[in-house]
């Protein structure tokens, strides 16, 4: 998709820069709160995201990932980026005991190679690093619900990230309150028809309405959120063993459960 069509710098009166880009099939909001961010920073991130889309989209038939899945591209000829991402996928598959698996679930392009569950978080994490290297310290990137936070929105205030309520469009289930750096990723099916397939069984998962993972790295958080969604409530015990990552789950019957560590992100909810 051509960036010129859906590339919207949003005017801001507080300094900083704010930009919404439609890429990878979603709106990516880049919200920089630093007083005077370098002009090229956002542009670089935007072109990076389009590059990721072109490389990893399973909706594009001749993207490298699609060709790799069909066997038209040999892994030996694939870019380091692709190999690196697939290695990460493989590591996380082993780690999650198959609850996250980029190699078995049917993708839109007709193959069963689909690292999307990790690529979104990975690309946003990289984008955050790019902004940091460009000298930005306080920003929020939200890619369709996968969020990378750095610093704080204004002096002495923390970021507040709303977690959607699965059924009610009016409400939030909870709010994550934190200073950056932090990653928040949510895996969910808000429509009844939308399924996330359990790679271990090939069947749609049924337990959860959404699974949110909070932690230091969005690449991992994104993949873990997918894995959590598949594991269901069992995933809470699994992720509780990872000190840096916490999860908040909403079941299909609209009950919320979370790891003990998640409470630290909810100062106003603890009673």
């Amino acid at each position, binding site marked *: *998709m051509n960036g010129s*069509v*859906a*590339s*919207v710098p*949003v*005017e*801001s*009166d507080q300094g900083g820069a*704010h930009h*919404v*880009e439609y890429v990878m099939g*979603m*709106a990516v*909001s880049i*919200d920089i709160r630093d007083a005077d961010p370098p002009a090229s920073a956002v542009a670089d991130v935007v072109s990076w995201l389009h590059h990721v889309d072109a490389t990893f989209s399973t909706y594009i038939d001749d993207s490298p990932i699609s060709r790799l*899945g*069909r*066997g038209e591209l040999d*892994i030996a000829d694939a870019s380091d980026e692709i190999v690196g991402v*697939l*290695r*990460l996928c*493989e*590591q996380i598959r082993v780690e999650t005991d198959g609850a996250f698996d980029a*190699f*078995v679930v049917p993708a839109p392009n*007709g*193959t*069963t*190679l689909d690292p999307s569950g990790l690529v979104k978080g990975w690309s946003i994490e990289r984008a955050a690093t790019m902004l940091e290297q460009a000298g930005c310290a306080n920003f*929020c990137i939200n890619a*369709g*619900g*996968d969020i990378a936070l750095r610093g704080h*929105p*204004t002096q002495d205030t923390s970021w*507040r990230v*709303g*977690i*959607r309520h699965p*059924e009610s*469009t*009016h*409400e939030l289930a*909870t709010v994550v309150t934190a200073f950056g750096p932090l990653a928040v*990723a*949510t895996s*969910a099916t808000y*429509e*009844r*028809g*939308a399924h996330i397939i359990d790679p271990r069984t090939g069947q749609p998962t049924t337990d959860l309405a*959404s699974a*949110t993972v909070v932690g230091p790295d969005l690449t*991992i958080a994104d993949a873990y959120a997918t894995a959590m969604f598949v594991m269901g409530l069992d995933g809470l015990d699994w992720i509780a063993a990872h000190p840096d990552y916490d999860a908040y789950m909403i079941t299909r019957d*609209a*009950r*919320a459960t979370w790891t003990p560590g998640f409470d630290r992100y909810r100062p106003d*909810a603890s009673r």
Partner: protein
Amino acid sequence: MDSDPLIRKQLDAELAARLQRVTARTSRTTPPTAPPTNRPAPSARTTSPRIASSPPPPPPPGAGPARKKRRHPARHSRSAALALSFVTTTGLAYAFAATNNSASATITAPAGLVGSSQPVAAAATTAAPNTTAPAATTAPTTAPATTAPATTAPPATPTVVNGASVRNRYGNVQVQATFAADGTLTNVDVLEAPSRDGQSVQINNYAVPRLNSEALTAQSANVNTISGATYTSIGYAQSLQSAIDVARANGLTAIS
């Protein structure tokens, strides 16, 4: 997460093996066969049940053969019941299909609400409720292009902002966010939702227990951004995000 070369080598070997399985599977399944979804409907049997002369006549699914002697009322009532059932079924199905599209519009956005809050907001952000070009063929996020209001003084009244109309696989999603004077997000209405959203809302309409662990509404306020979208259902969050973005950009939500 990269580890030592030996483990990496193992990893790559495994990677290659799994990729091979993917391509093998793909080539096996590629021939795009026509969807074999049409399974034969449970066909009504037309074999004739034995008719004894005994009183209890042969019952249901079999349509009885034409009886010669008496043209008793049952024959007509039978076919009448059958025809009526099928007509009702198809009629209802068509009615459902016809109403489903409009159902999405009636979910949460009664016209009155829009009308009532709009005039108040008009003073502050006439421009913010973006002109939603219906069925715009261009990509969705063009919408929040705002002609900034003349003043950025926070209004003392609630402000209504329309989010961008975001297209996802199932159709367009557009929400309308209401912000209180202090910039908190107080309400979100769905202006437009794809029919599948409409379906899910209808299904979920009854007796779904609320999240029982927490008070929800109290926390809806003061949010920077929202998590909880997927590749398939990102429209809502995107549209809301864009509404928040627009409001913030206009100095209406000093969100913190």
